[in-house]
């Protein structure tokens, strides 16, 4: 059985304009400390974070990370606090200077462009939404949203108009002239979102944008991101420590621990084949039926299998397939490109659903 590593629902329509990946990261490192430059290229770079700190006093926040993000993809980087994910996203737009490696956005090598060019890229090609919003308290909502347009020199009328469109897009109509501290946390983050969208970037970075919000507001905002992604189709890099959020939003997920990449793939891939105990522990509470697709529960076709069962796509989620599969007396045939590639019987479906309940009981 082969594992497909990319799963891009709306890549097709958007990939056309540039051809290559929207974001390409290779061998990216960030080491904090006085002698950070001297670690890479020596034997020390292979040390664990703890040993490195003991030996050199340097902290490796991000270690040798490589990945690509396709245009229109939502790419989630997740890990616990201290895993280096927030540093990683800041290396991508060089809010933090990388120690080594390359980041290419829109054909530009971010890590080596001069300051003026970097500023220009930030003004036009990328934007970021921050955990603590980072709004200017002395400016109205509309002027906060227009700030990116203002710093790149757009006239007042033009930027106000564009900002107003963004206000409407994120559902803040009527609050244009409020000041940030008059809004709730969720609304403030909508302002942050609108500010990032206003510059019409190709790539949007999100640094744990919803962790400071209440659970209900958080769900609303996640839905909002899903909706906006459908409407504007931006490439998004999303940082979170919440696996449920990662699964909900991400086309693909990169899991980090101690600055290193542990696993990268679709939610189903990660849940079905955790790379190690760390990831297994992480995904143990995920409702598998909601994540796994038939591809991961099917077995090879045997000659004695009945061929009268329903036909389903390998990317169908188990939970959605369950009712039809159980109702039918015959096992489900998984068909891809006109060929039967596997069989899912009641046993397989029940294993996913029941095992989940077992593990849930076991945990509690």
């Amino acid at each position, binding site marked *: 059985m082969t594992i497909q590593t990319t799963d891009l629902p709306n890549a097709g329509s958007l990939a056309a304009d540039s051809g290559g990946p929207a974001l390409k990261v290779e061998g990216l490192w960030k080491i*904090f400390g006085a002698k950070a430059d001297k670690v890479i290229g020596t034997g020390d770079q292979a040390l664990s*974070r703890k040993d490195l*700190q003991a030996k050199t006093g340097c*902290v490796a*926040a991000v270690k040798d990370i490589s990945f690509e993000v396709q245009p229109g993809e939502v790419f989630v980087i997740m890990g616990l*606090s*201290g895993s*280096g994910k*927030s*540093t990683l996203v*800041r290396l991508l*737009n*060089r*809010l*933090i*200077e990388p120690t080594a490696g390359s980041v290419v956005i829109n054909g530009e090598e971010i890590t080596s462009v001069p*300051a003026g060019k*970097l*500023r*220009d*890229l*930030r*003004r*036009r090609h*990328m*934007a*970021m939404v*921050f*955990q*603590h*919003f*980072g*709004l*200017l*308290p*002395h400016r*109205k909502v509309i002027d906060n949203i227009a*700030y*990116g347009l*203002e*710093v*790149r020199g757009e006239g007042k009328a033009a930027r106000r108009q564009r900002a107003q469109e963004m206000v409407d897009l994120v559902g803040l109509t009527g609050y244009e*002239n409020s*000041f940030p*501290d008059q809004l709730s946390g969720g609304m403030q983050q909508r302002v*942050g979102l609108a*500010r990032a969208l206003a*510059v019409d970037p190709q790539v949007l*970075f999100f640094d744990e944008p919803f962790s400071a919000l209440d659970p209900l507001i958080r769900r609303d905002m996640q839905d909002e991101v899903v909706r906006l992604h459908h409407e504007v189709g931006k490439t998004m890099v999303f940082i979170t420590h919440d696996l449920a959020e990662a699964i909900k939003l991400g086309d693909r997920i990169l899991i980090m621990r101690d*600055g290193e990449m542990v696993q990268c793939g679709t939610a189903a891939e990660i849940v079905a084949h955790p790379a190690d105990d760390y990831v297994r522990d992480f995904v143990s509470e995920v409702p598998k039926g909601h994540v796994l697709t038939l591809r991961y529960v099917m077995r090879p076709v045997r000659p004695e299998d009945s061929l009268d069962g329903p036909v389903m796509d390998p990317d169908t989620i188990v939970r959605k397939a369950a009712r039809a599969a159980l109702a039918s007396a015959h096992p489900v045939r998984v068909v891809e490109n006109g060929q039967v590639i596997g069989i899912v019987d009641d046993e397989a479906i029940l294993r996913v659903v029941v095992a989940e309940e077992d593990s849930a009981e076991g945990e509690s």
Partner: protein
Amino acid sequence: MSVLAPPLANHTPPEPDTTPWRATPARLVRNRFAAVIGVLVVWVVAWALFKDHFTLTIGGSEQTPVFDWLRDRSNWVEEAASSGSNPVINFAGWIADIVDSVFSWLQSVFTVAKFPRPLPQIGWLGTIALAALVAYAAAGWRTLALVVPCFLSFGVLGYWDDSIDLLIVTFFAVVVSCFFGIALGVLMAHSRRFSALLTPVLDVMQTMPSFTYLLPFSILFGIGPAAAVMMTLVYAAPPVIRITAHGLRGVSGPVLEATDSLGQTGLQRLWNVELPMAKRTIIAGINQTMMAALSMATIAAYINSPGLGQPVLDGLKRSQLGTSFVAGIAIVIMAVMLDRSMTAAGFRAELAARAGEKGGPFRKVGLGLAAVGTLVALYLSHSYVWANEFPSQPDLGTPLRNAVDDFGNWLRTDLSHLTDAIQRVATDYGLNPIQSLLADSPWFVTSAAILVIAAVVGGRKAVISTVVCLAGILGLGLWNHAMETLTACLVATIAVVVLAVVLGVLMGRSHRVDVGLRPILDAGQTLPPFVYLVPVLILFGPNRFTAMVAGVVYAAPVAIKLVADGVRAVSPNTIEAAEMAGSSTWQMITKVQLPMARSSVLLAANQGLLYVLAMVVIGGMVGAGALGFDVVTGFRQANDVGRGLAAGTTIVLLGIMVDRITTYGAQRASSPASRA
């Protein structure tokens, strides 16, 4: 470039500190206390053996090579100024000319008639209208309602011209000071290297008593308003520089990061993000600078600067304390007015930023009306004598002056036995023994004792500063006077600390006491040191005890507030736990609150010493003797300029020495790392 501080905290969760941190420094302090007692015992023995030998006393008019050398330098500067041969002196002269011409123009507008006009351009009505307009525009109508009666009181007390002159000097200096100060603050916030360079300079500037600025500035810029303005603006600059830098550094990291991510330039960042967000802090800095400027501009009366300092000084010189007292009241009113207005302006700036156009039309109409009214008042004031010259009636100043003089006479005749007794006890049992120990021991014994105490209290860094300062004091040749001044400072500081601990603990423990005392202390902190001298002088007459008491009163507000804040800052959880353990009130204070506020108490001692030192010098002119007297005679007699300069420098060295010892001591007491 937008490289932000690495979020290291994310990556290394701090190890929980399991060491019982209170035990170690507490023991350390006790050991140090024992060591200091030991030093004192040895010192007293040495004093008994060698008393009155090697004391380096110096006669009242004696000249030393050092004094001669300094006097020659001073003469050389004066000659260079008159001959125009030295570029630095010429540059200073050129600046003095500019400042003088701007100043005399301002005076011709507000206070001094300039030929051919028999009166200044704008008299009292125009000035008050202008002040009211500014107050309304910058801080709102409440401040207007404060400013107008204050201005009227200046006239009613009989010091209209002097008050306005003082305001001119103060504002002139503050405007220039803030212009350069904010720029330097911005540089400091952005360049670590520049900050490291400037910080020690600011430290020294803030340690130097205001009095010591007089001599160098008057030599460089000549006696008069130019030197007064220059001196004031330099003296007053440190707070605005420091607080601007502090405000900019405090701008929220996430906001900077977020706005950087949109591609702003450094200038856009400064102008759109940092300065607006630090605005309120910067205004607080301007306020402090203004208070410092007012204080210095008052003292500048010594170098013939016009203003309210003149009548205070005149009164002191001629023993007409009523005059000094009334002028002092005008200064108090001015200080409170400026402080309240600036605070309100800062508040209003915040409000305006938040509330946007709220209350817009009403305010616009109000401003328009106020502007029209001001124009009318200016015209009237320019054209009619009644609106130009402040009316001589009602006159509150004269009766007040007489009442104070009568009261003073009554005190001195009928109550003299009481005040004399207080004075005698304090002098005989406090001042004299300590002075004898410090000044009558051989110089090397005293030096060694000070060094050992510095080592015990402040550690290695303090010893280095102390060696440098002691060597300087010895070299300048005023050792004996320096020890006399130090004595007065130490005794006064002990009194300040006792007062601060008693009142500070009361304030820290009781909200009601705090609410009652704090406004008085706030107002007290804004007053120029001059003002404190007058009432004490009325009570005790001119002598060194008066200067000390004035010093205690002057230093008390800041010290009390520091201790109160320290006691207040003790965590409520700790208090609760101690209460549950069954502590009595006394145990709570002595075993929990004071030990935990230890570094605040030490800081209060440090600030108390510096404030007292500033005052003891001013006391030089009311019979405090020693260094203060040397500085004052340095002004009066050309022959003694060298001595005055040496005394001024000695005061600075003393100030730096006690500041370093107590600062490092406070640092060691509050950090558990001091075990090493």
